[in-house]
């Protein structure tokens, strides 16, 4: 029994419609080891975690946790009973409760058919924290007043109090400072020495290399290698993550010579704020400029700074050679900057309204200038065809459109103003392949035909390589690479973003 591995997953398959998220992945973790899990965005790591944690069913394959076979349709409760706990980035702690209370919430309050015994609740919390190697834990402090590393420890302690012997940590350090990372890692090591298996999912290769005993790399929904940390190096891991570049990639489109050397329309110099920077960027007309990086790299913070949605800590911007310091979207719009926010549902679609109302959500006319509904409807039908929205029916509720078509309406909303600079964040997140291709075509064609400067902010490296004319790669809030058209490939972006 004790020789059973902590996690033993074999040949796990998960298919979503046309996409195969996991194509027969194996993943095995020993007791008492810290095991890293590496891979690009979309390699299948998150899907594996969701299946292991019982949130999602697998289509095929076996999963054993500490010797317990888990059925195909299992539940988070069963996984917990088998002895595994999952620490997500959202730790699920109640900030207005004490450490002891939070730990008790995860297990149960200690009662013996009598009112809650707070003394025992505190003792249980102290025991769990001591197991983590925390000396003299203060379990009465409010969780909201703790730094992030300590909160993570509380979440881990809660799992331990629930008798977990396998811990899966999904990007625990994404929002942490350097010192905090060290604290967390010290305690994780103490835990592993006590026989608890830890799985660490991270994009930060140096952290993985520093902490882990072994590492497994995922690519395209399958494991492509497991290495002992002492017998591998960074270069080998990067090549495992990237794989061999695909042969026969489409030749790069030639960029017209006259726009190639065009003066930048928007420049960022030493811009910093919201956890990123300082950043120097040039956005040129007639080009698709990509800003990319791994999920926690801060590339999505760049448009927020440029648009004045987040306060700028330092640096400056120029638009067409003149200083530019917008105080919000309406300033940007007046200056000729169009914007598509990254979260389609929360920040983009007004669900209760029609397609037309969504497309012309904020008409550019002064507030008192009336419009003819009939003319607007004709114009809208034309615009919808131009943006390839299907079906092109202005009066239909936008809620009835597919995600891809909703996204096209959002692109259209910004494009009907004919902006000079078009900033488009994660335009194809969660939409089907056909719509994705159409959106890529749209981005390229507005850029080529009107000389618009298109800024594509994306976490999808394939998209970055397919659509971009120039790419800026961020890592941990810093600009780590600038790739021109002929250097730009999925492999190059991946290589630059890990590290």
């Amino acid at each position: 029994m004790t020789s059973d591995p902590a996690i033993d997953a074999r040949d796990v398959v998960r298919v979503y419609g046309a996409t195969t998220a996991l194509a027969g992945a194996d993943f095995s973790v020993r007791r008492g080891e810290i095991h890293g899990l590496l891979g690009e965005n979309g390699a299948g790591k998150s899907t594996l975690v969701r299946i292991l944690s019982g949130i999602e069913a697998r289509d095929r394959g076996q999963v054993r946790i500490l010797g317990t076979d888990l059925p195909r349709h299992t539940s988070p409760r069963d996984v917990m009973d088998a002895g595994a706990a999952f620490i997500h980035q959202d730790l699920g702690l109640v900030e207005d409760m004490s450490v002891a209370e939070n730990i008790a919430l995860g297990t149960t309050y200690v009662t013996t058919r009598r009112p809650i015994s707070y003394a025992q609740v505190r003792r249980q919390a102290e025991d769990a924290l001591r197991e983590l190697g925390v000396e003299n834990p203060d379990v009465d402090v409010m969780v909201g007043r703790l730094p992030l590393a300590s909160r993570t420890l509380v979440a881990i302690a809660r799992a331990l109090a629930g008798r977990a012997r396998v811990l899966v940590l999904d990007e625990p350090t994404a929002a942490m400072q350097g010192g905090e990372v060290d604290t967390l890692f010290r305690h994780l090591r103490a835990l592993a020495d006590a026989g608890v298996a830890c799985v660490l999912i991270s994009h930060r290769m140096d952290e993985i290399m520093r902490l882990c005993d072994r590492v497994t790399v995922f690519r395209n929904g399958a494991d492509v290698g497991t290495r002992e940390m002492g017998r591998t190096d960074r270069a080998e891991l990067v090549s495992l993550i990237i794989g061999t570049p695909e042969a026969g990639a489409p030749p790069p489109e030639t960029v017209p010579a006259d726009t190639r050397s065009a003066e930048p329309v928007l420049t960022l110099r030493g811009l910093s704020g919201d956890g990123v920077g300082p950043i120097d960027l040039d956005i040129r007309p007639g080009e698709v400029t990509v800003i990319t990086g791994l999920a926690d790299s801060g590339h999505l913070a760049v448009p927020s700074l440029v648009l004045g949605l987040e306060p700028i800590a330092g640096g400056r911007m120029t638009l067409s050679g003149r200083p530019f310091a917008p105080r919000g979207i309406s300033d940007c719009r007046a200056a000729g900057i169009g914007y598509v926010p990254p979260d389609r549902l929360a920040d983009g679609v007004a669900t209760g309204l029609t397609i037309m109302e969504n497309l012309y959500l904020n008409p550019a006319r002064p507030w008192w200038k009336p419009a003819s509904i009939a003319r607007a409807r004709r114009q809208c039908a034309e615009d919808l065809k131009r943006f390839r929205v299907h079906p092109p029916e202005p009066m239909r509720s936008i809620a009835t459109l597919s995600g891809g078509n909703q996204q096209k309406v959002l692109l259209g909303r910004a494009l009907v103003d004919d902006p000079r600079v078009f900033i488009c964040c994660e335009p194809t997140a969660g939409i089907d392949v056909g719509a994705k291709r159409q959106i890529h075509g749209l981005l390229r064609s507005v850029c080529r035909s009107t000389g618009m400067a298109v800024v594509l902010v994306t976490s999808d490296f394939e998209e970055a390589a397919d659509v971009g004319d120039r790419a800026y790669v961020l890592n941990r809030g810093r600009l780590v690479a600038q790739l021109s058209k002929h250097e730009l490939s999925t492999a190059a972006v991946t290589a630059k973003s890990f590290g």
Partner: protein
Amino acid sequence: MSVREHAGADPAPEVVVTTSARRPGRENRQQLSNFLWKYSVPILFLVILIGASLLRPETFATYTNITAVLSIQALVLIIALAGMLEMLTGEFDLSLANNTALVAALTIGLQVKQDLSWPLAIGLALLASIAVGALNAFLVVVMKVSSFVATLGTYTLLSGVWIWYLGNQAIVPEEPLPTGFTNLGRHTILGLTVPFWVAIGLAIVIFAVLKWLPLGRRIHAVGANRRAAELAGVRPRHIVAGTLVVAALIAGIAGVLLAAQYGGASPGAGSALIFPAFAGVFLGATTIDPGRFNVLGTVLAVYTLAFMVAGLQQLGGIWSEAWVTPTFNGLTVIVAVSLSAWAFSFREKRAGKDSLARLSTEGEDER
């Protein structure tokens, strides 16, 4: 872009087309049910008018009765329009009818107690209503208090103010007020009083603004998804503050008309108008443009409720007792709103089935 590629990318419309081609009966049934939902309140309105006219031809189906109901309920309609405007932006204003009551008290009081001329009294009273709206706007937009709580505060505050101003006594003018003033409430045009025409005029203006002006689009945008509106360049705080102030002014206009109608003032007169007004707004949102607060729906709903109550009262006996009006207003709203919410979710479920299925299969991958 070939036709096939289009269809491949967006399977939803394909499905719709094949379903309707295969099952014309279901499509027709659906159209009928959509029609019934859309015109439920107008149909109810007609049913009540015809039913009550048949039951009480000698009292209900008379010119005097119809014009009286239309005129008397005009103030409710004005307050309902103000409330609807705010609810479109996602805010709720409990203080509206108390604003009406305050303005009514001030309009009379300033003439009788302070000996001001009636136009000046009206002007000052309306300024007071704007001040109340500005206070609401300050609390909601600057202090970020939820509008429900903030206007609950001003609602209570206002009753304190008028009790203080009137000394908790009714004002009965010793000599009659100028006819120029009382005409605002009593003069009739085509058999209908000035307040009715003011209400209709306001309805038309608000309808036009919401439909044809960019301002109306922005108001809808703020109500539908405030964050999206902001990221599209709308300034939601300006829009919300503006509607709160304008709605307060509209409620104030109702107060002036109320004062002119009665030619006197008593503490709290008018404050009870809030209940039928809100009932009208919510019932109105179930019809004409179902699921959305709309002007035509509000107008029809206010008068449907009014004629229903008037008809019941004329039936006599138990139906004319005091508890009938609030009970029926309340019940109608509860039933109508629940039914429309149920119908809305049912229809959404059916329409969104395909796209939900797609959402759960695509793009759940790591992003």
